[in-house]
């Protein structure tokens, strides 16, 4: 299986505090990966590095078939290259309708001029409706997204992520604030997405991780502590000590 993203030897520190310490990580083109680890382990910071929000002090981040370095690209360029991200705290455009949020995310030319002259095609509207159907927000399309519940905002952000049709989905705590049924649905969406693309999920909920049924990477103090199946890592003594045993 060819590698889509390769992170190697990456370190970053904030005011002398090493949030990421010589981290290496790889993921293939159609692979699901769960990342777990205690609070402050550096899971979100890892995503910040891949998406260009935080620049690492050292290390390499290599992307795709052409093996380009993401470190020289801007956030927008990285996103256009095919990295989509869902934030830990749901961030949607609260002042705009659910429809507009999804339309904004739809994979299309992002330049100012094409956007200025953009006209909604029936095809795009259908896509938005299909996405809304998938995330259960069909009835809310005309509602301002600021009026949605926390869980619905999570859904909307997942919908926006899918709308971008990225090759790599970075999903930070998607199930927070969701009911058990909603969690199940989220799992289904992510598993479906991972059939054709790479998906990295950060989650604290072990039940959720178990249902993803995938390889797990355990982060601790900015580096990989263990990697393997969920059963494998949960029986690892270090993991029990720093994460599970508390």
């Amino acid at each position, binding site marked *: 299986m060819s590698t889509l993203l390769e992170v190697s030897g990456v370190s970053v520190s904030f005011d002398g505090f090493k949030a990421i310490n010589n981290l290496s990580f790889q993921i293939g083109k159609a692979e699901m990966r769960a990342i777990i680890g205690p609070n402050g382990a550096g899971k979100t910071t890892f995503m910040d590095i891949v*998406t260009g*929000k935080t620049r690492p002090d050292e290390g390499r981040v290599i992307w795709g078939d052409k093996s380009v370095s993401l470190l020289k690209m*801007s*956030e*927008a*360029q990285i*996103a*256009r290259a095919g990295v989509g*991200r869902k*934030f830990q705290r749901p*961030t*949607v*455009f*609260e*002042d*705009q309708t659910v*429809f*507009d949020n999804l*339309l*904004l*995310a739809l994979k299309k030319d*992002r*330049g*100012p001029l094409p*956007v*200025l002259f*953009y*006209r*909604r*095609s*029936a095809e795009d*509207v259908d896509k938005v409706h299909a996405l809304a159907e998938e995330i259960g927000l069909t*009835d*809310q*399309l005309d509602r*301002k997204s*600021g*009026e*949605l*519940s*926390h*869980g*619905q*905002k999570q859904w909307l952000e997942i919908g*926006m992520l899918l709308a*971008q049709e990225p090759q790599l989905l970075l999903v930070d705590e998607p199930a927070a*604030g*969701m*009911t058990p049924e*909603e969690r199940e649905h989220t799992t289904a969406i992510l598993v479906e997405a991972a059939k054709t693309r790479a998906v990295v999920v950060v989650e604290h909920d072990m039940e959720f991780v178990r249902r993803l049924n995938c390889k797990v990477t355990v982060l601790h103090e900015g580096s990989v502590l263990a990697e393997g199946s969920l059963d494998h890592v949960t029986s690892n003594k270090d993991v029990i000590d720093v994460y599970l045993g508390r």
Partner: protein
Amino acid sequence: MTDRSLFAKNPSVLIFLACLGMFTLGVTVFSEAFGSGLISTSFVKTLGKTLCLCLIALAMDLVWGYTGILSLGHFAFFGIGGYMIGMWLMYERTRDIIVTSMAGQEIPPTESEITAAIGNQIFGVVGSSEFPAIWAFSHSLTLQLILVVAVPGLLALVFGWLAFRSRVTGVYLSILTQAMTLALALYLFQNDSGLRGNNGLSGLQNLPGLDEVPQSVVSVWFLWASAAALGLGYVFSAWVVSGKFGSVLRGIRDDEARVRFLGYSVEAYKLFIFTITAVIAGIAGALYYPQAGIINPAEIAPIASIYLAVWVAIGGRGRLYGAVIGAAFVSLVSSWFTGGQVPSIPLGFYTIDWVDWWLVLLGFSFVMVTLFAPRGIGGLFDLWTGHMAPARHGQDLGPDAGSLQEQEADQ
């Protein structure tokens, strides 16, 4: 939900155009030149100038209200537009006068004698008679009209590129735009800036070659032109903000990092809107100053751009008609107060003279609007259309009730 026409999506555009048309017709019918004369020529000019201020307020609303860039420099672009048209007006009219006065001479003057005489006439006040290089195109109306849009556009492009590229945002960007304005004003104040220093350009109300047309007629012409420009500007702005582009702009205003992670180049969008609004401001200025008759560097002083922000805030930013209402209302009330027409209030121990106290009142209103009516005057229309944002006090209702409107949930 495919795209409907611009007017179907924004009924307010048609309403606005209708109001503007009726206003223009009304003023024409009561003007001295074309009607009963109820409205004096000077007031027609005031109204025409107000329309230009409304146009620049629209530009400010696009850049601030919709995109969240608090530019305190747009009056610089307005002033540049005025200077560019003023150069032609002044050159051409001085030339007319000189040619007429020299016509009586026995030996017809040569072209270079005429040019020297014009130079002497225009630059005598700053102790010079040479034409500075920036006047190279002043003989041509077409070229100067191109400069009306090109100079503000280019300045905004270069300035914006430098500022946005290094991700200067918020207060720092406002300060930077303010510094640009101040630098430009200080430069223009110098006698050797080539634009007559603090004398500025004057006599702009006289249109070259149209000496026999009275000002009462010219004033109405400019009113029409200003109304047309405002109408076009309004339709253009509505078009820009109504589609996906507007969606991106509002996204940038509310959460610019999120827009970046969707793959939009935020800097390119900011640069685009900053430049286009600078051009609109330049056009507004080019229509304003021929009605004002004079332009000098004081017009570009930083305070002017701050007023602009105040108008838009009081009118209601983030909605186009709000900006127009704010500019029209505040600038008209302001000229009423500062014109000395408002009776002073004697308090016995002190007399409130509105010429001095108007600014205090304006500042107070600004603070009040910001604190208690952030939607400004335009927000009043929401009461009428019942189009209110839910008062949710920033709280989610939770996973189950969250899909209900607040009043539904209360039931």
